[in-house]
């Protein structure tokens, strides 16, 4: 849909340890503007760690990680500025339970982007409409279903107008019926040309929107292929086995 004109994420030889545990091993990954990347792999393979490195929630020990041209981790102020280019959506939504849906969305706009209350609310409402939930603006997260909460989380992340959206298993804490409503919103985002890195095991979604599928195991990227190649017969035997298991049942 959009061209891969410029690179938003550029990871080279990334290595990360938790104490003695080597969780990311020589990871290379580039994400161009407008690209959709799906990351999958067994539990504990380092998917979350990778995506959290991209927006600076985790530090790393070796390699380089450039976000929109800025090296992350060198300078606290630059890292913070670069992080504002990203929007993150977590598995467990992580909405602020003591704030209304609207306040969840306006908090960063007012505190970080320095918008006035009225401006912030206008922007937030626009995004809540985009995720089709404007009528819940005055509700608290606890009063929403899981699917609704996750859509609010997406709206909240969109408010700061990020250049790239990061999703960490956004549907895996949801009831089966609600998964679809969240995936629909994500598909719509992808169609609008949003750059995305998404950890998910929803292979239907991956097949539909992913430009590139990355398979991780034991901290390594074992496979990195176009969606067509990945779901075709090519690739690493470990990723074939994994695909079989999760597609079979």
């Amino acid at each position, binding site marked *: 849909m959009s061209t891969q004109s410029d690179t938003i994420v550029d990871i080279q030889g990334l290595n990360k340890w938790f104490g003695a545990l080597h969780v990311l091993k020589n990871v290379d990954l580039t994400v161009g503007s407008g690209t959709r990347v799906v990351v999958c792999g067994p539990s504990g393979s380092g998917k979350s760690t990778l995506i959290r490195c991209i927006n600076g929630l985790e530090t790393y020990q070796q390699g380089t990680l450039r976000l929109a041209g800025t090296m992350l981790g060198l300078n606290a102020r630059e890292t913070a500025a670069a*992080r504002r280019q990203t929007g993150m959506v977590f598995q467990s*939504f992580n909405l602020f339970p*003591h704030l209304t849906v609207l306040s969840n969305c306006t908090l*960063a706009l007012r505190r*970080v982007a320095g918008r006035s209350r009225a401006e912030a609310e206008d922007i937030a409402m626009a995004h809540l409409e985009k995720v089709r939930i404007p009528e819940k603006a005055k509700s608290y997260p606890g009063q929403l279903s899981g699917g609704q909460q996750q859509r609010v989380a997406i709206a909240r992340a969109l408010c*700061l107008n990020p250049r790239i959206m990061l999703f960490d298993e956004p549907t895996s804490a949801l009831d089966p019926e609600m998964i679809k409503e969240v995936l629909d919103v994500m598909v719509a985002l992808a169609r609008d040309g949003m750059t995305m890195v998404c950890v998910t095991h929803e292979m239907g979604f991956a097949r539909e929107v992913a430009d590139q599928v990355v398979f991780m195991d034991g901290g390594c990227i074992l496979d990195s292929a176009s969606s067509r190649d990945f779901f075709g017969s090519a690739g690493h035997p470990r990723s074939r086995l994994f695909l079989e298991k999760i597609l079979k049942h």
Partner: protein
Amino acid sequence: MGFDLAFALSSVPIILGAVGTTLFVALVSCIGAAATGFLFEMVRRVGGIAGLTIGFVIDFIRSTPVLAWLYFLYFVLPFYGIRLGSMTVGVMGLSLYYSGYLAEVFKAGIDAIPRGQSEAARALSLSRRDAVIHVIAPQMLRNIAAPLGNYFVSILKATPYLAVLAVPEMLGQAFDIASETYRYTEPLVVAGIIFLVLALAISHGVKRLERRLLAVGAR
């Protein structure tokens, strides 16, 4: 030495006269202890030398009795040229002493907040200060309303210790009546009942507050 109800009642107004001092000291100490405790906890969370030092200070405070602190602040500091009024020392002593405990309460309250909350705040690029004010503190408050209330009651019950600093608080008044008349049981029971009523009132207030805090956004 039976219980003389008429005498007990006659002591009520005098003892109630000191209720203002007691409540004032308790209130200011609660605020002082909460503020200091929160500060301690924040420094401890940052870690490093400052964090370790404050961690030790908290444990030191928790390992020593409040009375010893009051003696120390009141009678020892002047030797180093720091002479504070008895009310000031009393409030300072109680604040400092309970700040050690409240730091622990705040710690538990913050630890109980799912890690995702502070990560979400960081992911939204909120500064550490904004995250603490707008995300962490309000949720911590919901987690700790009950233990916080317990310590407020404890602070109230600790005000009698200030008698050693010549602060005219309630129990001191009761002892004054007792030593003037040599009838101890009645004034002490009266003071005891007033303390109990105040303590229960605080507990009740905290429970209501807790319910209201929890009601916000409850499922």
